[in-house]
């Protein structure tokens, strides 16, 4: 049964209030596919019934499940590959020089989803920058969805997930096979601290960041919220820090206090002087 406009409006209001995410008309199909399992889990016969249920009981724990299902994004190891190349060839080497005296590195991976992105960053650091073992590295990864954070901490991936984008030599080096699944070794898992963060609200009290990854998440916010997030990320970054957005995203016409740096096929943003 297709979702009626009035029921879709319930969902739009919900994700807007809880996550400041704009759900455009035309995304009804997304609601159908993502909320189907939530509806079944909640004993509802349809997504429509689920939406009416959360509308009549805004304090129901199902509300959180609905928001989570709508804010979880597809990801893969080394997605788009080029940002990780830029990290290896340019960004981390520059930081190693700039912070040689203090030997600290602070990173934040926002919208961690099921963890492939932060763990791709972690494996890049382990593979190419052994000297960081003697540095004070704080690596936080955040997501709005507690269930995704629990998955991230577990570091357990299906065959399909490790098939996508993960180089075989890293699979052999950093994973153990448990039954049909692949489990990241503790040396990688222990590098990343997973924290629940709603990007539309104030960030936790973190140290100034050297690197922030916030890829393919700003597209879901209104222009006003995007601008606010970009301003707060600028304040969270060190003046010579590096900010990664998704391939189709830019700070242009949203917040103009950034300088774009092109590293091969990747655009990276730095706070404007």
């Amino acid at each position, binding site marked *: 049964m297709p979702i009626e406009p009035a029921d879709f409006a319930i969902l739009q209001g919900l994700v807007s209030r809880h996550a400041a995410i704009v759900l455009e008309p035309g995304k009804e199909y997304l609601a159908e596919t993502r909320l189907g399992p939530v509806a079944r889990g909640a004993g509802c016969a349809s997504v429509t019934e689920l939406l009416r249920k959360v509308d009549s009981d805004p304090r129901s724990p199902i509300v959180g499940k609905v928001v989570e299902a709508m804010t979880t994004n597809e990801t893969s190891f080394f997605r788009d*590959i080029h940002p990780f190349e830029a990290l290896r060839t340019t960004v981390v080497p520059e930081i190693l020089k700039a912070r040689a005296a203090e030997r600290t590195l602070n990173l934040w991976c926002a919208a961690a989803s099921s963890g492939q992105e932060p763990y791709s960053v972690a494996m890049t650091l382990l593979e190419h920058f052994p000297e960081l073992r003697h540095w004070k590295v704080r690596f936080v990864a955040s997501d709005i969805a507690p269930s995704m954070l629990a998955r991230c901490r577990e570091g357990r991936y299906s065959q399909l997930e490790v*098939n996508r984008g993960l*180089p*075989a*030599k890293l699979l*052999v080096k950093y*994973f153990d096979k448990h039954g049909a699944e692949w489990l990241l070794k503790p040396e990688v898992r222990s590098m990343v601290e997973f924290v629940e963060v709603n990007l539309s609200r104030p960030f936790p009290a973190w140290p100034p960041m050297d690197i922030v990854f916030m890829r393919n998440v700003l597209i879901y916010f209104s222009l006003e919220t995007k601008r606010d997030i970009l301003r707060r990320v600028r304040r969270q970054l060190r003046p010579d820090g590096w900010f990664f957005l998704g391939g189709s995203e830019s700070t242009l016409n949203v917040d103009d206090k950034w300088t774009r740096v092109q590293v091969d096929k990747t655009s990276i943003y730095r706070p404007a002087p």
Partner: protein
Amino acid sequence: MSGEQPQARRPRALVIDDSRAVRSIIRQILAELSFEVHEAEDGAAALKKVQELGGVDLATVDWNMPVMDGLQFVHELRKHPEHARTCLVMVTTETDMDHVRRALEAGADEFVMKPFTKEVILGKLDIAGGAG
């Protein structure tokens, strides 16, 4: 010598699998990437084909095949320095860690576990530098 500029050769791929259906799926993916695609149904036939063609840029290699298996093919091909740059991607139903490790040690560049999607193959070719 005619003095004309030689035309750039299309990258050449060899799909090695004893299943015609799998060969056809991979052929289609590689053809979309502008590869000139050839096929072989086992490792021995594949070695012969590589010789006939004077080398290939990419080979996707099944593991379990009659006559000569995929691992043996990788070993044999890597004995020849002129094929050191051929990108070799195992595409197999073998999914345990030992198989991945043995394939890499023999000289395979990447490892795809069946079942796979087009995106999986494209992603692995990107990593292995074999996308043409």
